[in-house]
């Protein structure tokens, strides 16, 4: 939907809406007739989780969902799950989603968006407890409000049943239960509470967190910032006998004051029956009061941010459920204190001890990252070494290789070559295609003057987006140092990376004959960018097709130019001419082929789309080849001592609003970007007429000569200037790689283009004569 206020038929309308309707708005519900059912639930890492299926009319998926009684949502769902269910079409149409619980189905008209990152992290850390089924979302109060709800967590169930009939007279609560009159605001259930010797407030009944919380501001006002505010009475139940309250900001509003949120640690002790129709909650104690020792001590240390108190807590309660949280906080505080590597070691050891046995390496990676963020390499090494000890048993096998990789890199920075080599080699064993690992091994071997090994590693690095530019630079340095080495050339790199990167070769070569072509040379202009997408989709699809097209059509029939545009991120192959031509031809972005200026084909897609893109462009070229041209062109050039000179000759009919252009291109240019296209073909470098769109076709007796004379150094300077300008405007950074025009790769493309339509009327592509330095030397008397 793209309407703006400026639309011709746009009109403004006002509607009165209830305040924050949108914040709390319910998804449209269409629940099936409620059937009472006991639903098995489990508490995983402090969250209440239910195993169920979700479905649309297209698909059904087994999932885990959080049950958050205090969350003002219907069904929040991870984007990937929503995509898997095909619950939305691109035009915005939503399809109902059904949550299949045992004997109960809940249907929502549409999902709400979940916190994907948090859901992914939770699944990663708790995959075993979750039965290797992802948590993909949350069921909230908008769904649960229509049910009589019983939390029976002591038995491992929640129970949902149809709403009860309204009671004419309030019934006496069953013996052994406490009845609390509730208030319902925003579909949330609030329990009346008395605290601090008689003050009253309300607590939200929640199930979205383990700890029962108290508003941190209130706790601070009571001079009890750690949350130990004394007794909190819910009827005759003193909540403080069951749990220590955790101080936290309470993001809810109640007219009597929001005291806090009931958590799972309280619900574990009680059977809690919520009757919204009759406005009460019944609490039945299922366990004797028993507060977990140590909670308060941790909350005190946490609030005070007292590292020593945290360490003491961990000493006293090494197996406490909060030990991991406490030890992670301890590491952070110690890093802030800038303690020595020896002093950080105990804190790191606590984290290692507190995390699950099969996540020690995964956990160590997080600590290494934190130490790295503080710029403390020796601390990072200490964290990594701990992770390696438990690495073999880690749930995620790559974690240990990633630790080796990071350790190797840091040791290399510290000039500890032996250690660096040991770790990098171990990392490469597990992750042989990783660019950074290979790059660092290349650097290490280069330092040790083991150039052949370095070259081999740099090749691996050069084809990965994270290490490509440095890999190419490494290759450039090392290739000439190899015994019997040759200067780095595109051909050499292409040879070396063959089979390691995706490529696309045409099955056959175009053979011109009288029926399929005439005098016309078609110009194929390809607009792309090295950072569009990744190695799977984006520029890769168009780039591979380009490789196939250049290989298929000989230059006698088809001339090629590729322009790198500065979006989504400028790369060093951009030139100003590309941007201007794209604007002139109304090219939407770096994903377009223009065939003879006026025909279009898609220039991006999945890598597997390459053949389709190739065929699409090829088909249009074939049609165009059969159209005649009124223009004849001759083009010649010579590069000598870094200077390109030459002349274009054009003969054709006089026609207004027509331009002539000559472009310097490079046949192959190395630059590994995110698209994982490493070798870029027929890259436009500079307009040799001095004008991005060419100069006026101004023939004398039907003929026109366009001489050109330009130094290759000036081409680089101009392109650098443009990159600097783009970077200044956009705040982007470009690593200036492959900026020099290699004379041996130089190519000249000329064409005549209608300024009115953008149509290319004739084109030509030739290689200039190149006089190499040694030949110049020989020619000298």
């Amino acid at each position, binding site marked *: 939907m793209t309407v703006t206020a400026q639309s011709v038929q*746009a009109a403004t309308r006002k509607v009165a809406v*209830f305040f924050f309707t949108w914040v709390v708005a319910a998804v449209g519900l269409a629940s099936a007739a409620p059937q009472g059912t006991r639903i098995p639930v489990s508490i995983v890492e402090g969250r209440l989780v239910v195993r169920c299926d979700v479905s649309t009319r297209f698909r059904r998926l087994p999932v885990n969902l959080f049950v958050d009684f205090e969350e003002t949502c219907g069904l929040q769902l991870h984007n990937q799950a929503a995509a898997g269910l095909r619950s939305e079409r691109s035009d915005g149409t939503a399809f109902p989603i059904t949550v299949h619980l045992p004997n109960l189905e809940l249907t929502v008209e549409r999902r709400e968006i*979940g916190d994907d990152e948090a859901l992914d992290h939770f699944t990663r850390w708790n995959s075993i407890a979750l039965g290797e089924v992802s948590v993909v979302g949350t069921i909230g109060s908008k769904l649960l409000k229509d049910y009589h709800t019983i939390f029976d967590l002591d038995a491992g169930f929640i129970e949902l049943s149809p709403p009860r009939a309204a009671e004419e007279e309030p019934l006496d609560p069953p013996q052994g239960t406490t009845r609390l009159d509730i208030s319902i605001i925003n579909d949330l259930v609030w329990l009346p509470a008395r605290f601090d010797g008689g003050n009253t407030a309300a607590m939200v009944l929640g199930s979205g967190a383990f700890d029962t919380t108290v508003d941190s501001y209130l706790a601070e006002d009571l001079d009890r910032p750690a949350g130990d505010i004394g007794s909190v009475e819910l009827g005759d139940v003193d909540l403080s006998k069951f749990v220590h309250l955790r101080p936290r900001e309470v993001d809810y509003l109640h007219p009597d004051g929001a005291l806090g949120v009931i958590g799972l640690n309280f619900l574990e002790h009680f059977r809690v029956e919520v009757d919204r129709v009759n406005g009460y909650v019944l609490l039945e104690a299922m366990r004797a009061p028993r507060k977990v020792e140590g909670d308060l001590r941790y909350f005190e240390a946490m609030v005070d941010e007292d590292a020593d108190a945290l360490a003491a807590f961990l000493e006293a309660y090494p197996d406490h459920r909060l030990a991991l949280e406490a030890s992670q906080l301890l590491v952070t505080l110690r890093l802030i204190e800038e303690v020595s590597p020896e002093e950080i070691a105990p804190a790191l050891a606590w984290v290692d001890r507190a995390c699950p046995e099969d996540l020690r390496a995964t956990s160590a990676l997080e600590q290494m990252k934190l130490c790295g963020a503080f710029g403390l390499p020796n601390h990072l090494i200490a964290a990594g070494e701990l992770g390696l000890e438990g690495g073999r048993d880690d749930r995620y096998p790559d974690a240990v290789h990633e630790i080796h990789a990071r350790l190797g890199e840091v040791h290399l920075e510290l000039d500890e070559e032996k250690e660096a080599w040991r770790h990098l080699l171990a990392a490469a064993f597990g992750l042989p295609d990783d660019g950074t690992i290979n790059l660092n091994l290349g650097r290490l071997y280069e330092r040790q003057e083991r150039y052949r090994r370095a070259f081999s590693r740099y090749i691996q690095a050069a084809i990965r987006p994270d290490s490509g530019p440095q890999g190419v630079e490494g290759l450039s340095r090392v290739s000439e140092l190899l015994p019997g080495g040759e200067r780095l050339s595109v051909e050499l790199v292409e040879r070396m990376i063959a089979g390691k990167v995706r490529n696309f070769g045409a099955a056959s070569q175009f053979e011109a004959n009288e029926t399929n072509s005439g005098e016309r040379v078609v110009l194929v202009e390809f607009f792309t960018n090295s950072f569009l997408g990744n190695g799977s989709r984006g520029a890769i699809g168009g780039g591979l097709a380009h490789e196939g097209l250049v290989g298929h059509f000989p230059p006698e029939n088809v001339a090629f130019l590729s322009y790198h545009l500065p979006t989504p991120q400028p790369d060093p192959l951009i030139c100003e001419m590309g941007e201007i031509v794209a604007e002139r031809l109304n090219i939407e972005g770096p994903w377009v082929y223009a065939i003879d200026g006026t025909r279009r084909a898609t220039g991006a897609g999945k890598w597997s789309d390459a053949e389709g893109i190739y065929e699409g462009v090829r088909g249009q070229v074939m049609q165009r080849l059969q159209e005649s041209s009124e223009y004849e062109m001759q083009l010649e050039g010579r590069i000598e001592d870094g200077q390109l000179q030459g002349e274009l000759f054009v003969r054709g009919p006089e026609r207004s609003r027509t331009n002539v252009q000559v472009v310097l291109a490079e046949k192959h240019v190395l630059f590994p970007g995110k698209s994982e296209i490493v070798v870029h073909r027929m890259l436009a470098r500079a307009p040799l007429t001095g004008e991005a769109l060419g100069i006026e076709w101004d023939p004398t007796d039907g003929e026109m000569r366009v001489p050109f004379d330009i130094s290759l150094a000036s081409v680089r300077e101009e392109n650098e200037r443009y990159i600097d300008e783009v970077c200044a405007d956009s705040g982007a*950074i470009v690593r200036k790689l492959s900026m020099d025009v290699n004379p041996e790769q130089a190519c000249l493309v000329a064409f005549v283009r209608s300024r009115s339509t953008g149509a290319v009327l004739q084109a030509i592509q030739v290689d200039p004569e190149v006089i190499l330095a040694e030949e110049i030397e020989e020619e000298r008397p």
Partner: protein
Amino acid sequence: MILLSCSALAFGLTAVSPESSGPLPAVVSADLTFKPYKEWDILLPNEQFAGVAEGIRLPHAGGDSLPVRLEGTVLWVDRDGDGKCESKVEPLERGKTALLVLRVPAEGQEQDKSYAVRLSSEGKWTYSASGAMVGEVEGTRVQLIDQNNNGRFDDIGQDAMIVGRGKSASFLSEVASIDGKLFSISVDESGQRIEYAPYSGPVGILDLGSEMESKARMRSVVVTSEDGKRSFEVSRYNEGLSVPAGKYSVHSGRVVLGKSKADLRQGRSEWIEVQEGERTALAWGGPVEAEFTYARSGGEITIGPRDIWYYGRSGEEYSNFMPLGSSPNFAIKDKQTGEVLVNAKFPGNC
């Protein structure tokens, strides 16, 4: 540590209270130290990310900024001002940031100074401050944040500050409310020292609590004075807050209900004039009015999520509703019969 100072008012405190008369109150100073934040959960009135192309701005003994270098998709940062980019930051997923703690030699000081940034690679590499100068004023915790990312902490009306243990910041203000009392304050460039003295100008009460209608909680409400030099975060003051007399506007804020949230900004709301000795209450919040535009093309009507605006009672504007997916219902009715022809909602990701 708190130091008593009877010296002339440093950092221009005299300029802060032109209304004051009689003997100048004693100026007290307090030291602040830098604290990096691993998880950034502070609500800023005007959070901004700066591009790294010119480096990370941080005045130090070796220059005004720290250089960065891009290698492939990886950013390298000079974290200590030695000219060598030694700290590596991998590209990040959308919406994620990476903490980097910087330590640079401080001009004229033996000890290095610390600073921290959150780096983002969304679109291009950018950064935002990820720490605060922390200290105590009159026994109350105070945090100063380099909100405009220039490596300084003394930009009144541009940087940010938090008084108390909360997470919601106002702009750095010439006058701060500390434990219910007003103080004129001044900060040095490095943020290592704050000087303060009781505010002695005319005072009134700004009441944004008593006539606020909402089912949700105000997590943050930042007001600023007409000249931008005074700013207060008033979300916790339901009974009103003493502020220097003058004109104020609601600048920004956040409304929360559990994990749901929405941002608020001035929108069309008018200036609020606080008179000396008087209480000024603002009737704001609900009911909210929504305004929208639509376009008709033949038999098709188009409404975009960006073509709808929500305004509160005083004209304040609400936006950025999260989580997404809770759409208003659009009903298209027959003009004559009132019959609903079509009901429409935005898709779940709008």
